[in-house]
């Protein structure tokens, strides 16, 4: 049994259906008589909306309804909301403008929803949407965060498009430390805007049952209960007990399916307006580029104060964050509490001060995307530390090691609010240097040079805060919800197990990992476990999957449910075995009387619980236990990534030759799944560094709205990754000792790539470091050298 328990490289049980095309995604669900919604989207980045020619379209073949912002308002539906209030330096709350389901007065980005057309067939809906005439009065637009303050006012009454001006850390102590610095390293950098690109685009199918007045929404969601909460409490689609949200198989999220979007609210509302006709919408790829919440998009300045010995004294950071045209569900916390709180990195820098200004622009809303704030923090720290090493002529590995929080200093209170529980940063660094043959680099560089190539090596010692999060802590920082998680373990008569979880798997392999957890905790065969998620009518209320939290928070709720099962089972077994409860031991699925071979299996105990003919007095029948777990702290995965690459100076092309990733994820349930998660994260991190960019032109048109122009990383862009996850320091915030692994690759990789590229060509290039940018940088360096 334990060959498929915790620690085993068990093949994923969900893969059979995915690989054979038997997955069931939202668009696969076809309800009798379903109609199709198509959204009319603004072609302008900023425009006043005049007349909308509804009547002409209502008579077109198959058209069931045309809905505008006025219809939504008339029905009393509320605005979408951002659920985390970030308070400015002056004590004022954030400037959250209305985020209507459909535009009312103005459209504020290209792709903004202006109207929804519902028709019997998809082609009819498209024809009608194409025919709908909308009077637009185009207005000037602003897309760059650096220009937002002086741009046109996007929301009435919000001057300078400023959402908040927030700070963290001890400003005075930081200023004082800079006075004592022997050296100050300064850097200005851009963290490029990314489109999330889940394989499955967003989709929704809404159905109102006029008999029961029950509303059912099938939607591509990472957190169906959060969808239900926001749609009922804030938007007012239906009361919560009359609203069921189902997230079936979902093909990737990366954050973009956390958020509550207008489309899913509107198809459900339209079903009610149309007396129960089911209404479906599925985004096409360009619609996904235009309307999925994007990620990143920061412009930052940072300064690192260093003393004469190379010790970091202080870090000062200013960041301007682009939040797009509206505040998406968790947008406000990404460039603040998920970003500046991580600016200590792995270092014992005693003083840190960061301030962040967030702005509206005429672009798609920006929210959490794989890593969410932590990649931006890690990239900034690891880039400035790399530059400091170059300026000081220090080995970048040794400068880092000198400044690491030592392993005997945990728990460690950083100057930016977090308390790191465990870690051994020198161990992951040493292992990564060893695996990458760091010492042999100079010889390899000479060999490259003999072929006319520029070789570089780069380090990134990242840290992240995962397993979000302690509810009391996030609540004190402005979160509108708690971030605990639920689990339930249910035995049947025959000893089979259903695990119900409030988390949601959209590629992570929960069905496998949670089954392994049950196999180890309860001694039940892996194959006898069924994991159920993604349906608000089946699972206990849960907060969903993001922030690498499913195992560290949701898994712990399941583990605690198991402990309750064992506690109850012990009472039943004691009765059946005619022994004292205190004498019953539980191991490998057997309740045994201590010191004897008298035993009852957990299956026999489950049967007795459901057929309680011979049963202890005062014990309820049944064997089903649940738990809600609110962690006492975040978890802190950390590690060292080493990238080695070669640049062709003739073209500026970068080829990654080796990529070594040594991660401390604490204990690991399934190393194969963890490695797969790291591989995916590394691809996205390398994609950000070298390839990906969501690009708006100055008029606000999204230039990169198809795969002809948005460069996704492919297998041939990377070498085989060398990934190692076995060196963990167990997390303290949960009994499993797990930390979470879903985001690490995307967090740690960009700085490793850019540091390696900088090492190769001698100058830093902004991401994505395309061949042309690299080539220009090499030319500029050579011209400068020639002039000297």
């Amino acid at each position, binding site marked *: 049994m334990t060959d498929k328990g915790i620690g085993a490289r068990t093949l994923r049980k969900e893969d059979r259906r995915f690989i054979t095309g038997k997955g069931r995604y939202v668009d696969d669900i076809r309800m009798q008589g379903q109609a199709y919604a198509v959204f009319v989207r603004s072609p302008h980045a900023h425009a006043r909306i005049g007349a909308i020619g509804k009547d002409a379209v209502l008579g077109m073949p198959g058209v069931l309804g045309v809905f505008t912002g006025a219809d939504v308002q008339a029905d009393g539906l509320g605005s979408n909301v951002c659920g985390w209030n970030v308070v400015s330096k002056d004590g004022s709350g954030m400037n959250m403008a209305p985020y209507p389901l459909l535009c009312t007065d103005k459209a504020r980005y290209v792709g903004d929803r202006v109207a929804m057309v519902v028709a019997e067939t998809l*082609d009819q809906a*498209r024809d009608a949407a*194409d025919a709908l005439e909308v009077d637009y009065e185009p207005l000037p637009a602003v897309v760059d965060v650096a220009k937002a303050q002086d741009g046109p006012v996007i929301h009435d009454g919000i001057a300078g498009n400023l959402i908040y001006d927030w700070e963290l850390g001890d400003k005075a102590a930081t200023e004082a430390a800079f006075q004592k610095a022997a050296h100050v390293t300064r850097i200005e950098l851009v963290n490029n805007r990314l489109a999330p690109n889940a394989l499955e685009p967003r989709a929704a199918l809404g159905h109102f049952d006029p008999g029961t007045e029950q509303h059912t929404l099938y939607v591509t969601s990472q957190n169906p209960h959060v969808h239900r909460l926001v749609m009922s409490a804030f938007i007012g689609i239906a009361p919560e007990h009359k609203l069921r949200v189902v997230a079936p198989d979902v093909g990737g999220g990366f954050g973009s399916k956390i958020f509550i979007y207008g489309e899913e609210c509107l198809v459900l509302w339209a079903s009610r307006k149309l007396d129960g006709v089911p209404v479906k919408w599925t985004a096409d790829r*360009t619609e996904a580029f235009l309307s999925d919440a994007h990620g990143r998009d920061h412009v930052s300045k940072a300064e690192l104060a260093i003393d004469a010995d190379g010790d970091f004294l202080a870090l000062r950071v200013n960041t301007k964050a682009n939040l797009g045209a509206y505040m998406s569900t968790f947008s406000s916390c990404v460039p603040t509490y998920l970003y500046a709180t991580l600016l200590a990195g792995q270092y014992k820098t005693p003083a840190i001060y960061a301030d962040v200004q967030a702005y509206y622009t005429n672009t798609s809303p920006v929210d959490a995307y794989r890593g969410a704030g932590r990649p931006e923090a890690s990239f900034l720290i690891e880039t400035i530390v790399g530059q400091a090493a170059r300026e000081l002529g220090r080995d970048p590995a040794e400068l880092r090691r000198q400044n690491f929080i030592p392993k005997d200093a945990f728990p460690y209170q950083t100057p930016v609010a977090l308390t790191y529980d465990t870690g051994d940063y020198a161990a992951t660094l040493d292992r990564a240097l060893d695996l990458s043959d760091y010492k042999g680099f100079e010889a390899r560089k000479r060999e490259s040079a003999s072929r006319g190539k520029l070789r570089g090596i780069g380090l990134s010692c990242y840290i992240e805060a995962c397993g979000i999060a302690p509810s009391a802590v996030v609540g004190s920082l402005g979160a509108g919800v708690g971030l605990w998680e639920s689990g339930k373990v249910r035995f049947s008569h025959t000893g089979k197990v259903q695990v119900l979880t409030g988390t949601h798997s959209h590629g992570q392999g929960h069905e496998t990992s949670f089954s392994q957890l049950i196999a180890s905790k309860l001694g039940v065969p892996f194959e006898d476990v069924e994991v159920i998620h993604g349906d608000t009518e089946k699972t206990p209320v849960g907060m969903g999957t993001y922030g690498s939290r499913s195992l560290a928070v949701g898994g712990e709720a399941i583990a605690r449910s198991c402990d309750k099962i064992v506690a109850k089972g012990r009472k039943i077994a004691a009765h059946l075995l005619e022994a004292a409860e205190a004498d019953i031991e539980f191991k490998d699925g057997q309740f045994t009387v201590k010191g004897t071979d008298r035993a009852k299996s957990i299956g026999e105990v489950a049967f007795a619980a459901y057929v309680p003919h011979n049963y202890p007095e005062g014990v309820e029948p049944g064997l089903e236990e649940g738990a809600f777990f609110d962690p006492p702290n975040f978890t802190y995965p950390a590690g060292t990534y080493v990238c080695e690459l070669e640049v062709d100076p*003739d*073209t500026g092309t970068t080829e990654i030759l080796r990529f070594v990733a040594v991660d401390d994820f604490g204990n690991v349930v399934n190393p194969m799944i963890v490695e797969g998660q790291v591989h995916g994260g590394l691809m996205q991190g390398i994609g950000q560094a*070298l*390839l990906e*960019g969501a*690009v708006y032109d100055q008029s606000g048109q999204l*230039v*990169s709205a198809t*795969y*002809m*122009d*948005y*460069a*996704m990383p492919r297998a041939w862009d990377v070498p085989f990754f060398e990934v190692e996850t076995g060196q963990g320091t167990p997390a303290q915030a949960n009994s499993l000792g797990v930390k979470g692994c879903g985001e690490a690759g995307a967090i740690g990789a960009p700085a490793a790539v850019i540091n390696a590229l900088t090492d190769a060509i001698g100058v830093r290039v902004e991401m994505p470091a*395309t*061949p*042309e940018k690299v*080539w*220009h940088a090499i030319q500029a360096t050579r011209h400068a050298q020639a002039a000297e």
Partner: protein
Amino acid sequence: MYAFDYAKPASLDEAARLLADDPEAKALAGGQTYIPTLKQRLAQPTRLVDLAGIPDLATIKEEGDGLAVGAMTTHKAVAASPVVQRAFPELAYLASLIGDPAVRAMGTIGGSVANNDPAADYPVVVLTLDATVRTTKGEHRGSDFFPGMFETALEPDELIREFHIPVPEAAAWEKFRNPASRYALVSVLLVRTKDGEIRCGVGGAGPTCFRATAIEDALRSSFAPEALDGVTIDAGDLNEDIHATAAYRAHLIPVLAKRCVRRMLRR
């Protein structure tokens, strides 16, 4: 996709007649450009005339000093053809680098040339080798087949039967890919014809493929990579987009040509 009628004629002449009868009808070869265009509702033909049912359009044979390649021959078939691999291996190599396996299995040489996407690969071959384009209305010379971006010398109801591609003495193909689409950002086909003439065709860089005469002139006097040192290409007429400026494209042309020279000298 808008609704359209569909016809699958059994002969090229019938296909040409269907196209002549209806100016809004459109021929469909492998569909690797046109089907996505239809899906995005960027075209609204009355009728698709599918050429896939016409026999004998996907043949490859040696003919005189060259290869006769049928218009409906897929990229995959060209890449895998023993005839091409023996007579003109660089053409098989070029075909093997087009798109991805799915595109190569469906896309055709005729469709690629008739579409004349500035970033397509086969137009560079037809231009550089001055291939003969045999059609339902006669013949065209490759050297004046591509007047501009997405334009060809074909009449609207004129269909390509086959290409006669002269086999060069030696050839090298270099493609620098657009990081997003993986089409050519710049491509260079360098050949020495059987008459000893050096020709350098360029794709991806301009509105349509063209010959880089400055490179040809330099290599005519000395066929060595160093001969291209200092050779510059005027960026004025070249394409510019978020992936590359015209100046960068201009820079890449001699870089790729040098690589071609090195490869040809190594053989």
